[in-house]
């Protein structure tokens, strides 16, 4: 069932939409999801869609983007049969377990070889219904529905998404790739809800690839809850490549248990408006967290990374690095809050945000926030905003390298540090190539799944 709604007055109309379609929202959805809807919509009534008057959204007013005529798919018809089977999404040299979502709905999955025993991978609707206790144990535990409007909205409306569970002591050799495709002739509003659980002593690498395949406007509100249990090692890599008419609010909310090691990489290669909320809470001792991000903006694109690392317990390490290249009239923001709570002694927390501004009109607002309540910690933060180094430019030109090429070399050198943090070599290699192409202006609009190389023929892409 597809519903077209014209939204002018945000809260009331979204709440009315919810009330009207509640039974549809609930139908077939796991109990754990339905159980939270009521509370979530109440919170949403209070919080609403944030404008720039909300402190956390000071640089990104979401309200205008959630207005207008948008289609909401209340059923999986939106996962137009057949579309995603044509979508070739392969990182060379890397075999992955692939799971495809079209317009927020589960489409299918492909697998060259079987998953290790006990691993659950699929739609949250199906796998959540099959594993109700597991879902209930984790669902909604990290999403900040009481403080964040989009997270509350997602919890009220979401019907589908990815469910990944890695059982105790299982090492997933090949990454899981969650491919999110937005397509179709109508402008859409999509709610997707993912949950990823790495159980004790397990290891997994999860990639989210976000794409747009048609020129329609897409407004995507995604929430992913990530649980790294004791001694687990997990990498979450997001490669975002969407057209200029896309709006994506993506929340990655993670929690860590003792001795776990979590790395997040948010690579915003191309997006109209992207707001990433990346939050990691260290709920136990001896956790390690690495939070990295790269954002490349031009034209009038806007990227806002809002990050929070919560050192709630002692003896944890975190290291955060976000870098951005802003060209043309693009705008961006970075907020990096690091909270070291009173008990979190022996914390090491390092954060850095560096920006390269290529034009007079590009803008970046960067706000590192270090809050320390413990007294035996090692912490640092820093933010820089600068231009291309003229001396380096001259050095390269004096060796016979022309200005354009020298610019690409220097921009790439700037971005390189973040790319090298990715712990999956073939993905790193792929992203190196993509970033270089991006800087050369060779993918203005994506030709296919950028993360995955060219696709033949019939799937046009904007």
């Amino acid at each position, binding site marked *: 069932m597809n519903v077209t709604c014209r939204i002018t007055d945000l809260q009331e109309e979204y709440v009315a939409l919810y009330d009207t379609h509640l039974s549809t929202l609930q139908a077939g959805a796991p109990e754990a999801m339905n159980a939270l809807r009521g509370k979530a919509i109440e919170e949403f009534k209070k919080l609403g869609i944030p404008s720039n008057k909300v402190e956390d959204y000071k640089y990104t007013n979401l309200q205008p983007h959630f207005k207008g005529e948008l289609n909401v798919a209340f059923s999986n018809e939106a996962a137009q049969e057949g579309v995603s089977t044509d979508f070739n999404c392969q990182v060379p040299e890397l075999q992955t377990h692939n799971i495809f979502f079209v317009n927020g709905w589960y489409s299918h999955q492909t697998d060259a070889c079987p998953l290790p025993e006990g691993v659950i991978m699929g739609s949250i609707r199906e796998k959540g219904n099959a594993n109700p206790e597991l879902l209930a144990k984790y669902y909604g535990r990290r999403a900040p529905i009481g403080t964040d409007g989009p997270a509350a909205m997602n919890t009220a409306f979401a019907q589908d998404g990815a469910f990944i569970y890695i059982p105790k002591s299982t090492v997933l050799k090949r990454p899981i790739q969650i491919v999110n495709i937005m397509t179709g002739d109508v402008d859409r509003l999509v709610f997707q809800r993912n949950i990823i659980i790495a159980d004790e002593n397990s290891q997994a690498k999860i990639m989210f690839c976000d794409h747009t395949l048609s020129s329609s406007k897409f407004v995507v509100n995604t929430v992913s809850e990530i649980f790294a249990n004791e001694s687990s090692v997990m990498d979450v890599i997001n490669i975002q490549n969407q057209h200029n008419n896309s709006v994506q609010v993506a929340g990655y909310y993670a929690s860590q248990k003792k001795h776990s090691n979590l790395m997040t990489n948010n690579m915003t290669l191309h997006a109209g408006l992207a707001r990433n909320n990346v939050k990691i809470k260290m709920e136990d001792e001896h956790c390690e967290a690495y939070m990295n991000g790269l954002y490349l903006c031009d034209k009038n694109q806007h990227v806002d990374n809002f990050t929070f690392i919560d050192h709630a317990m002692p003896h944890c390490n975190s290291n955060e690095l976000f870098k951005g290249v802003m060209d043309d009239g693009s705008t961006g923001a970075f907020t990096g809050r690091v909270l070291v709570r009173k008990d979190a002694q022996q914390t090491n927390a390092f954060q850095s945000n560096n920006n390269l501004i290529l034009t007079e009109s590009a803008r970046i607002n960067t706000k590192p926030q270090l809050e320390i309540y413990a007294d035996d910690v090692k912490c640092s933060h820093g933010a820089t905003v600068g231009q291309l*180094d003229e*001396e*380096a430019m*001259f*050095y*390269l*030109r*004096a*060796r*016979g*390298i*022309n*200005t354009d*090429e020298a610019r690409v*070399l*220097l921009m*790439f*050198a*700037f*971005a*390189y*540090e973040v790319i090298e943090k990715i712990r999956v070599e073939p993905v790193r290699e792929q992203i190196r190539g993509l970033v270089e192409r991006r800087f050369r202006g060779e993918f203005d609009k994506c030709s296919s799944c950028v993360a995955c190389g060219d696709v033949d023929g019939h799937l046009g892409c904007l």
Partner: protein
Amino acid sequence: MLVIKNLHAKIEDKEILKGVNLEIKPGEVHAIMGPNGAGKSTLSSVLAGNDKFTVCEGSVTFNGKDLLDLPPEDRAREGVFLSFQYPVEIPGVSMVNFMRTAVNEHRKYKGQEPHSASEFLKLMREKKQLVEIDSNLTNRSVNEGFSGGEKKKNEIFQMAMLEPKLSILDETDSGLDIDALRIVANGVNKLKTKENSTIVITHYQRLLDYIVPDFVHVLYKGRIVKTGGKELALELEEKGYDWIKKEFED
């Protein structure tokens, strides 16, 4: 090869070169010496095309072409090479990628096919041996974390890769211990042919024991005030620059 006529150049509003005349023929080695602030490095920057400096008068022709009319990259492709006094560190740009890009841009300019990866690596290997540069250096980012001596060796390595017609060595000896100086000078001498020329800019005579000049010029207050053979360098080493200053003021 290189003809400089009445060259005036300024940075912001300060005139630094006040009428430099110099002619260099193929195969010649010219040393330019002078006290601090004489304009030695300005001259090399202007020849390489650094746009921090404005040329307000005069001309420079290089093999018949108006050098001042060319952007820095084309000057390099025409065969002008500047060994920087302070080579720039460029983290994230690998030496291999940097040199491959530079060499292939030179080849493209000459209408040649770019080197294949294996051809290029072979070339790198040969040139590395020639200038005695440590293999590890070329696996790193450009000049990043290099010592002073390593940076200078790396300049000479780049010179070997690009095979320039005119090399300008700007204070290549500064900060080098005697062993590094010898290696750098040996590299320069090995690259010497009958066709290519060298300008050695230095404050001290010692480098000229290794790279023997055909001419020594003294630059003072933006002009060449004295020219002689290699014995002039020895005289300067012994007597300092004061007598030149005195002679000039008189």
